């Protein structure tokens, strides 16, 4: 059950990502245009406005695919409906429940559909059930739940979280800590579940009008960029401590770090998990602390693309460079000289456990 939920949330994140990329990059590029070239280009401003429309749709997309992972194709529509309400509250006096609400919408829609598929109806009603009853009735139920109880409770909660985040990010003594934690989470499992939780947290506040989303967004950049950059640079500097293969992978790894593909770090981390991941987490945490401590924000996503839109380009670069510097230094000092090649690969044979199911 828990695993199923986790898988559903990851599915939502997975399908939502391309939308975030379109919206984020469009806002970044149009923002650059208005800032540096011409603030009054109508076409550019229209495009920027449209990017914000996409942004408002993101909770709906997320909810739709969370629902899809649970209740299959038929759950997409009610999920979308619920997620949309999460970002656009329908009645006065209720707040947008945002990403949290969208999560609830997706789960409710998914299970509603999964459950109603099991309800037995006479043969002749079967096709009507699929085309009419399921979408309409689940859609209505999700609508009611999202518009009233969820908007009232989770909407409040969401507002509370965002307000507190804003307070936190404005007080440097807490902001640096939050930045450090988020960045370290990203660096910890390099694209794995913990990384996605940190990123999900960023997206959770992504479309808040206060712009807080862009501040936490900037704070995870060191976590995304430092690991792959550092292992590559460390391998090139301290060739005696890395295997030939690791040295050969270094340039592509550095490139991956620059464009924000943290996963390139994985082969290095598998070889020497504690030293590599530890160094990366410390480096990323320091970078994240600097980034958020100075309140740098950006609307760009993934690696170097965040740079042009950073509110403080110098601090952005500095926090990455410091993070990489620390991590490289730690790895070079901590890593042992390479041993003659041993087949360490199969040693975790025994903790492998799984069941065969049908």
């Amino acid at each position, binding site marked *: 059950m828990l695993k199923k939920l986790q898988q559903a949330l*990851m599915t939502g994140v997975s399908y939502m990502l391309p939308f975030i990329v379109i919206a984020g990059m469009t806002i970044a590029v149009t923002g650059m245009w208005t800032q540096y070239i011409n603030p009054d280009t109508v076409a550019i401003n229209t495009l920027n406005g449209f990017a914000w429309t996409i942004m408002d749709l993101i909770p709906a997309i997320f909810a739709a695919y969370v629902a899809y992972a649970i209740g299959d194709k038929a759950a997409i529509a009610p999920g979308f409906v619920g997620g949309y309400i999460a970002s656009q509250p329908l009645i006065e006096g209720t707040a947008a429940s945002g990403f949290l609400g969208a999560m609830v919408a997706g789960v409710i829609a998914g299970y509603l559909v999964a459950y109603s598929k099991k309800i037995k109806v006479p043969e002749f009603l079967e096709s009507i059930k699929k085309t009419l009853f399921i979408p309409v009735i689940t859609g209505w139920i999700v609508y009611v739940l999202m518009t009233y109880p969820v908007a009232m409770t989770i909407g409040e909660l969401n507002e509370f979280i965002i307000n507190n985040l804003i307070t936190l990010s404005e007080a440097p003594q807490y902001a640096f800590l939050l930045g450090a934690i988020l960045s370290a989470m990203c660096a910890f499992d390099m694209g*794995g579940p913990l990384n*996605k939780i940190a990123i999900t947290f960023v997206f959770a506040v992504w479309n808040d009008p206060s712009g807080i989303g862009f501040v936490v967004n900037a704070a995870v950049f060191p976590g995304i960029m430092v690991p792959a950059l550092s292992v590559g640079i460390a391998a090139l500097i301290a060739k005696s401590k890395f295997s030939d293969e690791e040295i050969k992978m270094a340039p592509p790894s550095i490139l991956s770090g620059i464009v924000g593909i943290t*996963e390139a770090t994985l082969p290095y981390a*598998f070889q020497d998990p504690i030293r590599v991941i530890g160094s990366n987490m410390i480096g990323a945490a320091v970078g994240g602390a600097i980034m958020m401590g100075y309140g740098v924000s950006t609307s760009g996503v993934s690696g170097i693309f965040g740079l042009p839109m950073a509110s403080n380009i110098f601090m952005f670069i500095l926090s990455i460079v410091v993070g990489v510097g620390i991590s490289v230094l730690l790895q070079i000092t901590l890593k042992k000289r390479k041993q003659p090649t041993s087949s360490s690969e199969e040693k975790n044979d025994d903790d*492998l456990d799984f*069941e*065969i199911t049908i």
Partner: protein
Amino acid sequence: MNIIAITACPTGVAHTFMAKKALENAALKLGHNIKVETQGATGIENEITEEEVKKADILILAVEVGIAKKERFETIKKVNIPIATAIKSAEALIRKTEEKLKDTQK
């Protein structure tokens, strides 16, 4: 063994394809047939056909997200593992799968 496998991770650009490669290499080394379908950022690639499902002994699901077209596999034996397992210890995974499969057939 005839193995079919699906790999899928949330971002769908790195882990998905690393797992595919690891599984293919391991199967080759251990002398099994394998076909790995990836459900990455661009959708399904190297799609498993109905014919292949029929021939296969086992389906390895190294997925962290809900997968598309899962109705194809209703009747086949499957193994569910985290995608990291496929990347890290594909050989051990396949060896163990073979053992377990033999146990179930006894």
